[in-house]
């Protein structure tokens, strides 16, 4: 059964066999997102993961109209994206509500950074180090801007900062919609910019 036919059978006919096929086909995708988001929120409980997987499926089937609306046969990737977003929101909403229950506020408006855990910082920075880093960042930005052609400059700088400052992998950057590069392409940009910096910083003695 094609994806197109499967979505129709689920959303328009409410057919149990079709839904079973749907669960089977998207299980790895949904379970993968639930697993990663739950871990990000600080839990490894298999029971909780199982409950959240079930909740995700029930949320999806509760709005068959939406399921149809989100699916465009020409762009199946967007449908996978939709399923991932629904799944991660189910998990985040669960942890938000847990958090607000703990705080007793009754509101589930915690921001994402309050429920997910980030990797530990390598060490705290004092004011002097922060100022030094601020200057270094400006210097790096200036060198790169001066060395890059206007065309594609902004994109290359975005790649640089997303990779070195915020730790996105080259693969994650390549998947972002406006980047339009393969993983190799992103790696090549990073190598090129690093080379520029290396030459310029060595000459000016910065660092």
């Amino acid at each position, binding site marked *: 059964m094609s994806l197109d036919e499967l979505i129709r059978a689920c959303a328009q006919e409410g057919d149990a066999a079709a839904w079973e096929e749907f669960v089977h086909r998207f299980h790895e995708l949904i379970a993968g997102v639930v697993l*990663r988001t739950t871990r990000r929120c600080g839990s490894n409980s298999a029971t909780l993961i199982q409950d959240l997987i079930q909740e995700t499926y029930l949320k999806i089937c509760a709005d068959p109209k939406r399921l149809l609306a989100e699916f465009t046969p020409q762009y199946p990737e967007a449908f996978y994206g939709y399923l991932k977003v629904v799944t991660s929101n189910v998990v985040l909403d669960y942890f938000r509500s847990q958090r607000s229950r703990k705080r007793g506020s009754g509101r589930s408006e915690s921001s994402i950074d309050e429920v997910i855990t980030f990797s530990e910082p390598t060490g705290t920075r004092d004011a002097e180090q922060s100022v030094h880093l601020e200057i270094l960042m400006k210097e790096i930005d200036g060198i790169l801007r001066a060395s890059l052609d206007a065309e594609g400059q902004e994109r290359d700088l975005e790649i640089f900062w997303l990779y070195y400052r*915020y730790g996105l992998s080259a*693969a994650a950057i390549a998947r972002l919609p406006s980047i339009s590069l393969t993983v190799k392409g992103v790696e090549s940009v990073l190598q090129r910019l690093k080379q520029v910096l290396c030459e310029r910083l060595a000459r000016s003695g910065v*660092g």
Partner: protein
Amino acid sequence: MTRDPQAHLSPEELAFLSGERESVSSGDRDRQGAEVHAETCTLCGSRLRSHRLLQANLRNLAVTVAADQKPVCPPEQTWIDLAAGLSSVIEARTFLEHASHCDHCGPILRAASEIMNPEVSDEERELIRKLPTVETTWQRRLAEKMARSSAEQLHREPATPAIPSTTDEGPKTVAEKKPPTSALMGSNWLISNWARWIFPLGAAAVACVVFLYMWYFTPSLSSTNQLIAQAYTELRPFEARFMGAEYGPLREQRGESEQSRSRMAEPVELLQADERIGQALIRHPQDSRWLQSKARIEMLEGKYQAAVEKLVKAQSARSQDVTIQIDLAIAYYARAGTQRDTADKTSDYQRSLHWLNMVLSKNPDEAVALFNRAIVHKELKQYAEATSDWQHYLHIDPSSRWADEAAREMQKTNKNSETR
């Protein structure tokens, strides 16, 4: 394969020896051979020292924990949608520009991109395999529940139109190219030359007539927008202000379904404007200015989703246009009022705030944006920010009827803030 001892270090070797992350190509990893070469070659030794110094500096730049959110930060849902590939290229461009310089949004984008990673690792696959959810009996039971739930929904709601199938489209027929025929072939010189010119001249004349007709009959955009502004003043279905509209008291609460409105009850200005926009869009279906006007009408008619879609399209054509940014903020604000899910509601208010922040970051005294942002802050229960915006607004506009309303709202906000 051992490396040539005389060969200078390749970029890959420099990256590897300077301790750069694994994700950047590692290339030839004859580490010992490369290290020996770096020790004996002055040029490569110096290069490696520079690389190591730079690498240490770059490592220090890393931000792993999200800093506090700033008013200009887009809603956090943005990063989840972006990492899942649901943002348009135009939207993504704007958002990435922000994320690459924001210590709040950058780490969240990283977390979102890790969550949305399409590759399932072996370790994750193993964990998933151990869950009871992979068992056929579990999946069957869940599928039965899902079937019941979706069937109930289908009975409750009217039938939805079928989605277009990729197989529905028949094979495209290619029109056969007919060889050009000339009835005048073999005629005398005068006739053939006359014929050579008469057709292009005739076509040009027809084009001129059509152009003049269209120019004369294409309705004026500014007068159409004036009609919409008048209709807004008469209707004013939500607190947020439209640009260029006179004051009008709030008539009804948002959330009224669009089906419950009758076109007969709509002001005549709205009907006239809608007719003009319809004419213009037939001729220029992609014109972002007319799409924006249509979106304004849809907002007055309670069709907020349709308005958002049109404005997003218009915004992608005129990304720096402040009027579209303000309209988009109004559309998200209005749609928030109809959302049942708290997270969706908050997300819409945050989107509205994002666009208003964008306008006000360039022009802090933009009165309509300030007025509207105060309202959005109020909805998000950010009373201190709302009060600050009302104060700023009253400083710019101390005496209009909008100002009276702003003063009343500021008093209410202060009370809410105290009782909180």
